[in-house]
């Protein structure tokens, strides 16, 4: 299929907008992505035509929403090639997916003195829930470090693993450095020691094909809003064998079978983990977003983004005294950088005034910033709807920044 960037940009009305009278350059895609018109339309359609609460409804609209919600689950299942659609739990985002596992898997399988290995590259969302768990259970966290290019030092993993290691958790792709981690290799190694692996895929699924069957990961989590779907949606994939053994996370409607004050029995998967009214309109639009990605083709997306990364890296490196943080061989379209002596906040403020949206700060990865001993970076993250022309605008903007602060 042809990759027609003009046609694609027409699907995203927001991109042709002006900010402070300047054309918007949206390079904050790692924080959240824009939504194609078909996703927005899906939301409108359901609220205007079918909206009714799902499950157990005998009436037409309720059946319609239930069907569409389950259909979305099936789209997700196919998107990551899971074995069963009941292995797909709808959550409200990656953070909730991680907390669910930290709580339910943790309660069932983690006891005193057990160890969890976490990579040094993680987002706070993949650190804090495990810290809270370890506090509760008096268990320990061990850290798998990365080298100065931003690549995990896998050779260290074997020595970190002990008889007490109960889980390894890491992200597929680092949000602050863009590193694509060799998760397949890590999973193989972990499994050779019978250790399950949790993958935080928040920055993974939108950039490359993900096949959980082939990866053989035990869990894979991601957020809808980072893959062109509405806010308040997310997914937890878990192998049936784990989900079956885990106790429920939240209690409420729909996750139960029979309730009395003496005793309650739980519903089957996936509903055991979906307490309360789900964000069904969000989920339905989430399914539409994945269909949209499929229609563009994830390989086409990866190819275009690689071009943007290569072009951007080359271009931005031309700026004097600019350091790029994260130079892994294998990375997604994220460029994190600092210009010597210029605070990221100052750079961000000026770029903003030029219509360029970048993120500045620690990107919720303080340990990564600590590693480099910097307060934060300026991060430009590209999506498939971005162009090299926009990178040129960023380049010109950075020249202005340099001129303003270094004169």
């Amino acid at each position, binding site marked *: 299929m042809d990759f027609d960037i003009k046609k694609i940009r027409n699907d995203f009305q927001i991109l042709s907008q002006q900010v402070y009278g300047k054309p918007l350059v949206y390079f904050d895609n790692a924080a959240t992505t824009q939504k194609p018109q078909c996703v927005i339309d899906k939301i409108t359609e359901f609220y205007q035509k079918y909206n009714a609460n*799902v*499950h157990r409804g*005998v009436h*037409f609209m309720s059946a319609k929403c*239930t069907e569409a919600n*389950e259909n979305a689950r099936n789209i997700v299942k196919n998107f990551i090639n899971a074995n069963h659609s009941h292995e797909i739990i709808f959550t409200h985002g990656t953070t909730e997916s991680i907390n669910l596992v930290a709580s339910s898997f943790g309660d069932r399988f983690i006891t005193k003195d057990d160890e969890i290995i976490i990579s040094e590259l993680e987002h706070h969302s993949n650190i804090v829930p495990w810290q809270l768990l370890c506090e509760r259970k008096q268990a320990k966290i061990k850290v798998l470090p990365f080298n100065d290019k931003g690549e995990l030092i896998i050779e260290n993993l074997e020595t970190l693993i002990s008889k007490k290691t109960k889980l390894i958790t890491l992200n597929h792709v680092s949000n602050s450095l863009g590193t694509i981690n060799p998760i397949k290799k890590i999973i193989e190694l972990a499994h050779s020691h019978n250790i399950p692996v949790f993958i935080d895929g928040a920055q993974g699924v939108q950039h490359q094909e993900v096949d959980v069957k082939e990866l053989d990961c035990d869990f894979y989590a991601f957020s809808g809003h980072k893959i062109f779907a509405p806010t308040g949606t997310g997914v937890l994939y878990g192998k049936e064998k784990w989900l079956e053994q885990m106790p429920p996370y939240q209690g409420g409607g729909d996750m139960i079978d029979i309730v009395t004050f003496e005793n309650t029995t739980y519903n089957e998967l996936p509903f055991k983990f979906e307490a309360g009214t789900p964000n069904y309109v969000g989920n339905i639009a989430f399914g539409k977003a994945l269909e949209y990605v499929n229609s563009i083709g994830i390989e086409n997306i990866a190819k275009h983004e690689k071009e943007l990364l290569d072009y951007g890296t080359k271009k931005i490196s031309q700026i004097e005294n600019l350091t790029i943080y994260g130079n892994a061989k294998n990375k997604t379209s994220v460029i994190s950088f600092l210009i010597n002596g210029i605070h990221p906040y100052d750079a961000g403020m000026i770029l903003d005034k030029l219509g360029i949206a970048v993120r500045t700060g620690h990107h919720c990865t303080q340990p990564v910033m600590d590693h480099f001993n910097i307060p934060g970076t300026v991060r430009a993250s590209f999506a498939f709807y971005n162009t090299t022309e926009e990178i040129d605008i960023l380049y010109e903007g950075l020249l202005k920044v340099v001129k303003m602060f270094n004169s």
Partner: protein
Amino acid sequence: MTIKNRQQEIIEEFEIYDDWMDKYSYLIELSKDLPIINDDAKKDENLINGCQSKVWLHADFDDGKIYFTADSDAIITKGIIALLVRVLSNSTPQEIIDADLHFINEIGLKENLSPTRSNGLLSMVKQMKLYAIAYKTKNLPCL
């Protein structure tokens, strides 16, 4: 009569009604023909819990064929069960396993067999096929 023939028969019976109300009335009528499960078989193990209506199902195996009895506390559900039992009972396990139950669609009662209406019917069809698989395995000649 084969499963296919029996489905055809039902489709023809329903053809004379073009109004859904008449169809449902007929369904209510049919519910009275259901071979009701024995009281002693109406126990929790035979209960298929479909959230809203309860369905009990029992299977007997005799001379290579399966015979179903069933019941439900909801009448529309019962009517559809009556149809399903009429179509599938008195068949060999293999026939039941292979059965494609298209008649539900064709007589316009599709919504009753959707996984989104929690009436237990879909679970019942699954259960009927599971019985068939169970009896087929049991009945294999010793090799």
